[in-house]
C-alpha cells in the first residue's frame, strides 16, 4: 500500500475535509507546494487558490481556499482555510466601515449614509476584483 498522510481542511465556519491522501497540493505564498507523506514540518501562509488532495484512488479533490495557513507535521497536514478573501486593503476597508457605522449609529445621522456605504462597497469590490485577478494570473 502506498504511503498516505492525513489531511484536515478546516475553516472558521466548519470542517471542510478530513481524510488520507497520497499527495496534497497547495498554493503557498512563496510558490505552489506539493506535499507527500513524510514531508518536513512546515508552516506557511496560503494564497487564494486551489488546494488539491490526491487520495490515491485516481481521484483528485479540489477545494477552493481564499487564503489561510498550512501546517505540515510528520503525519498530519492541516489547512486552516479562510472563508473570506483577505488582503490588507480589504481588511482596512471593513475596519473603517465598522468604525464609521459605530460613529454614525451613535450620532444618529443618516445623511450621507448611502454615499459612504456605496463607496466602501466599491472599495471592497475593487479589492476583491484585484484578488481575483491575481488568482487568475497565478493559475494561468
Amino acid at each position, binding site marked *: 500500500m502506498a504511503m498516505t498522510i492525513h489531511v484536515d481542511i478546516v*475553516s472558521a465556519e466548519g470542517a471542510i475535509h478530513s481524510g488520507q491522501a497520497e499527495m496534497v497540493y497547495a498554493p503557498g*505564498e512563496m510558490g505552489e507546494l506539493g506535499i507527500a507523506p513524510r514531508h518536513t514540518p512546515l508552516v506557511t*501562509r496560503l494564497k487564494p487558490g486551489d488546494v488539491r488532495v490526491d487520495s490515491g484512488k485516481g481521484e483528485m479533490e479540489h477545494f477552493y481556499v481564499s487564503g489561510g*495557513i498550512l501546517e505540515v507535521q510528520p503525519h498530519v497536514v492541516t489547512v*486552516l482555510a479562510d472563508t473570506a478573501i483577505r488582503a490588507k486593503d480589504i481588511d*482596512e476597508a471593513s475596519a473603517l466601515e465598522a*468604525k464609521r457605522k459605530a460613529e454614525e449609529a451613535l450620532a444618529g445621522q443618516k445623511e450621507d449614509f448611502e454615499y459612504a456605504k456605496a463607496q466602501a462597497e466599491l472599495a471592497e469590490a475593487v479589492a476583491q476584483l484585484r484578488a481575483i485577478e491575481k488568482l487568475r494570473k497565478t493559475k494561468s
Partner: protein
Amino acid sequence: MAGAKEIRTKIASIKNTQKITSAMEMVAAAKMRKAQDRKEATRPYAEKMRNVIGHLAHAHPEYVHTFMKERDVSRVGYIVVSSDRGLCGGLNSNLFRKLVKDIRKQQEAGIQVDFCTIGSKALGFFKRFGGKVRAQASHLGDAPHIEQLIGTVKVMLDAYEQGEIDRIYIAYNGFVNTMTQNPTIEQLVPIAGETEQELKHHWDYIYEPESKEVLDGLLTRYIESLVYQAVVENGACEQSARMVAMKAATDNAGNLIDELQLVYNKARQAAITQEISEIVAGAAAV
C-alpha cells in the same frame, strides 16, 4: 350585557397573538438546532489553530508576540456580543447587567473602558449607557459570516497594537442548554495561558515567510475565530431564549383566554337570565 361583545373581541385578539407567539416558538426551535450545529462546526478550526499556535510558541520561546504580552492596564476594551432582535426574554439584559457590574469594578480601579458592539441591542444599550463605542457590526442574520466581523475585530486589535487599549475582553452569552444561558465575560487579548499546554512532540518547522509574519496572521485569525465562536454561540442562546420566552407567552395567552372565556360565559348567561326575567315580568303584567 354590554361587556359580552367586548370580551369576545378581546378573546379574538389574544388568540391572534397566541398564534403569532406559537409560530415564533416553532421558528426559534428550528433555528436553534441549526445554530447549535453551527456552533459545533466552529470547534475543529479553533482547536487546530490552538495546536499550531502552541507549537509555534513552543518552538520560539524567545519571541513573544504583542497579543501574548501582558502589560500595565490603563484602558480596556470590551467586545459585546448581543442579539439583533428582542423578544428573547432576559437574554440581553442579563448580559448587560453583568457587564455593567464588571465595568464599575474597572472604573473603581481607575481603568477606562472602550466598547465595540456586535448586534444592534448592544449598540442601543451603549447609546443610553454612554461610553466610547469604537466599532460596531449588526444585522448579521441567522448565519453570520466571519467576514462580517473582520472589520470590527481589526479596529480593536489595531487599538491594542497601538497601545490605546491594554486588554480586550469579550462579553457574550454562553450556551449551557436550552433553558440556561450563561452570561460570560472572558479575556481575549492578551491570549491567556493557552499556549503553555504540554506538548509531547515538537518539530523544527520551516517557515514561509518569516515565522513572525506567520504567527501574526495566525493570531489575528485565532482571535477572529474566537469572536466568531462567541457570536455563533450567542446566536444559539438567542434562539433558545426566544423559544422559551415564546412558549411562556403562548401558555400565558392560553390562560388568559380561558379566564376571559369564563367571564364571557357568565356575562352571556347573565344577559339571558335577565332577558327571561324581563319577559316573564312583562307577561305577568299583562
